[in-house]
């Protein structure tokens, strides 16, 4: 398997037969693109989760405060 490697040394591999810039820049773009399109959706998911959780907790507190208030005010008025 390893005898079919097309480069005789690591320096050869980096040089890419004189096309180092072309080959490596394309693969660098590829990896960058790959990273961006997987990392950002995962990051966004975490943000959504955090945001929604906060909203959920705030709502719960509001509901409990509202119910306490309405219990207290029940005696004063019916609304």
């Amino acid at each position, binding site marked *: 398997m390893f005898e*079919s*490697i*097309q*480069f005789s040394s690591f320096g050869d*591999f980096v040089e*890419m*037969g*004189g*096309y180092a810039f*072309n*080959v490596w*820049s*394309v*693969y660098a*773009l*590829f990896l960058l*693109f*790959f990273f*961006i*399109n*997987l990392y950002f*959706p*995962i990051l*966004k*998911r975490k943000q*959504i*989760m955090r945001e*929604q*959780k906060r*909203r*959920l907790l705030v709502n719960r507190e509001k509901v409990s405060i509202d119910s306490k208030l309405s219990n207290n005010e029940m005696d004063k008025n019916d609304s």
Partner: protein
Amino acid sequence: MWLWFSKLGSPKWFYELSGKWLPWLAAGMSLLLIVGIIWALLFVPPDYQQGDTIRIMYVHVPFASISLAFFPLMAVAGTITLVWRMKLADMVAKTAAPLGAWFTALALASGSIWGSDIWGTWWIWDGRLTSMLLQFFLLVGVISLRSALEDADAAAKACALLSIVGCINVFVIKYSVDWWNTLHQPSGSFSLSDEAPNPPEVWVPLVIMIVAVYLFFVVSLILSTRNEILERERRSQWVQELIGAN
């Protein structure tokens, strides 16, 4: 059939099913990607004309071919949105547009870098490149159309229509190398099918890379669609339970 159809349209059902598939898809993608990249960079023999720049093909061809799938995908999703008002279809259409713009941009950039040495020029206004650039602008157009319209329902309809019309350009891209080949020097064409059949050590890694990039497209689309579901369905019972449980 109808039960299946309405089930498929339910964001909750899609969210649960995609959650089960995601690890497998991601694992398959990573495996194929690692094998494909190592094969393409180390083991593929240099081309007799293009030398080691042939290794660019293993990035360029998968992205260029898959970027053609976006408009048909968005058109199908758009038609489903228009006809059956399926919520999930519009979510997929919305997340596909930016991803498609990325795919098209990478196909253009890698082709340009490849061409800068092989053709001696970064850019040439031929049928293939021009129609591909048009696709990029059309996708940017779809994205801005959606963000420009405040009413989500109107935005979904407008984007669906633009996606269906935009499909015409896919045919232009696909057949551009056939239509304009005669005007061009043969070296200007990078269509592989015209050439003599390639040996397996050249096309097997290409097939691996195409499948890997396809899986990447699916994984990335699922990730963004799941985010979209969580945002749009945040008031629904099941999303609140899901977030509460986390």
